[in-house]
């Protein structure tokens, strides 16, 4: 009787091991195939700046006008001041643009710009494109947001 119990235990152990291996492989594989890149901080297209994009209040609320912070650093890590920023975007899978026209409204110091008027009216995959012009030159960056 005890032997059957042992088999069951061994089976369970093996299964756990398998799950573990699969999880490790899954977590370490690049995820490009499973959806858009969701990082909130990245190099701009031509590598001029490092941009980070976060909701100012920390959480995203569907259907509400919210302000976000775009933080710009040079590749060397210095804050980017006096940047001219344009904002556009939309939902690539639905073929439509943003429901509002967000703008860079304030410079908050240390390379941080308030992007106000951001609204996501539906769940799904959204993209925000920023055009950035500063002393170092012009560059652009795209952030993906999935609700």
């Amino acid at each position, binding site marked *: 009787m005890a032997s059957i119990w042992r088999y*069951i235990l061994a089976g369970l152990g093996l299964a756990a091991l398998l799950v573990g291996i699969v999880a490790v492989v899954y977590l370490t594989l690049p995820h490009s195939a499973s959806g858009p890149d969701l990082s909130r901080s990245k190099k701009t297209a031509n590598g001029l700046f490092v941009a980070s994009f976060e909701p100012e209040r920390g959480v995203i609320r*569907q259907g509400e006008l919210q302000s976000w912070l775009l933080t710009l650093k040079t590749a060397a890590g210095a804050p980017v001041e006096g940047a001219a920023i344009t904002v556009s975007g939309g939902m690539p899978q639905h073929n439509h643009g943003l429901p509002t026209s967000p703008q860079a409204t304030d410079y908050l110091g240390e390379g941080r710009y308030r992007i106000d008027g951001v609204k996501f*009216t539906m769940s799904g995959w959204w993209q925000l494109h920023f055009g950035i012009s500063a002393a170092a030159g012009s560059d652009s960056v795209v952030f993906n947001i999935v609700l």
Partner: protein
Amino acid sequence: MRRLTSVACLLALAALALLSGCGEPQFSDAEKKTIASLALNTLPSLKPDTTNQYADVPAAAALGSTLFFDAGMSRHGTVSCSTCHKIDRQFQDDLPQAVGVGHTNRRTMPLAGVARNPWYFWDGRRDSLWAQALTPLENPLEQAGNRAAFAHYIKKRFGERYERIFGPLPDLSSVPANASPLGSDAEKAVWNAMPASQQDDVNRVYANIGKAIAAFERSIEPGQTRFDRFAIDLATGAKPEGDAAFSPEEVLGLKLFIGKANCVTCHNGARFTDNAFHNTGVPPVDGLPPDRGRVDAVALVEADPFNCLGKFRDGDESACRELRFMVKDGPQIMRAYKTPSLRGAADRPPYMHAGQFSTLDEVVAHYSKAPPSVEGVSEVHPLDLSDRERAALVAFLKTLSD
């Protein structure tokens, strides 16, 4: 041995549980989350309107209610807001296009939950509930009045009530009987001849009329439906009983609505609207003037002296972000109209901004076929739904009315 039997028993139980579950409506966790987000109990409480300091003053709402039902608030004393927004008909009139003093070009919108809108009218050409109310009052096809006449009328009929809420009325003794910047040529000429301070006095009374009516309209809210009872039971894990139980057809319709048919991308949240503007390829009506929807409304709301950035707003400018950050151009606003709430829709045909479709079957057939728009680009794509799927969607929409 006992252990083995207990393991076997557990397995058998699990299998049984699975089997018995098969007859029940099955929703994935993602579907359950979406369904919960549509239920009325997730509707947040109404936010204060800082642009209207009387929005939650009961005396203002009471005066607003009187004005809403008062046919005296029109050129010939024949039309009130309630002529078209009928209290026993979800505050609409069942007509393809509204009829006031004349025949209008759009369908009367129902008013449940209206105070929650960022934009008013099918095309969003007004940005607050109180600014909206001022539009039909002077529209020659609706109430056809003029603001000077309204100011005199308020003083004569409701002077005391007005002053208790808004303070002393201005001296109207030298204000002409009929004048408005939007009226007939004669009314315009009289208006333009008035001193600016007098125009301002009249505009102030006029804005307050809107603010009182808005205070009343804030109380018009959607009611609970069969869908909400079903959704609450689903969320709490209770078995929907009685009329809260959905038929297999209604379950299929709900699944399509939030899944394959993509309805929930625009009709989302507890009011089934994203409060945004979309071109859905609804055809224009023969014989009506050209209607390009949102694209022509942008300039109108910007030019409205009663908009959020104008001087009749109470509170500060921080309330005006919708106006400040609105989309002003681009192909997406051509023939774009506001997503209407679907609550109660089954009980109030016809549908769309000019009553283009007379039944829900026609609405769903439109989405299934998704014809291209006559102007601009439709955002909806053909769904090619089967007869059974179309009927299921209609059956689901009806659960938002019972």
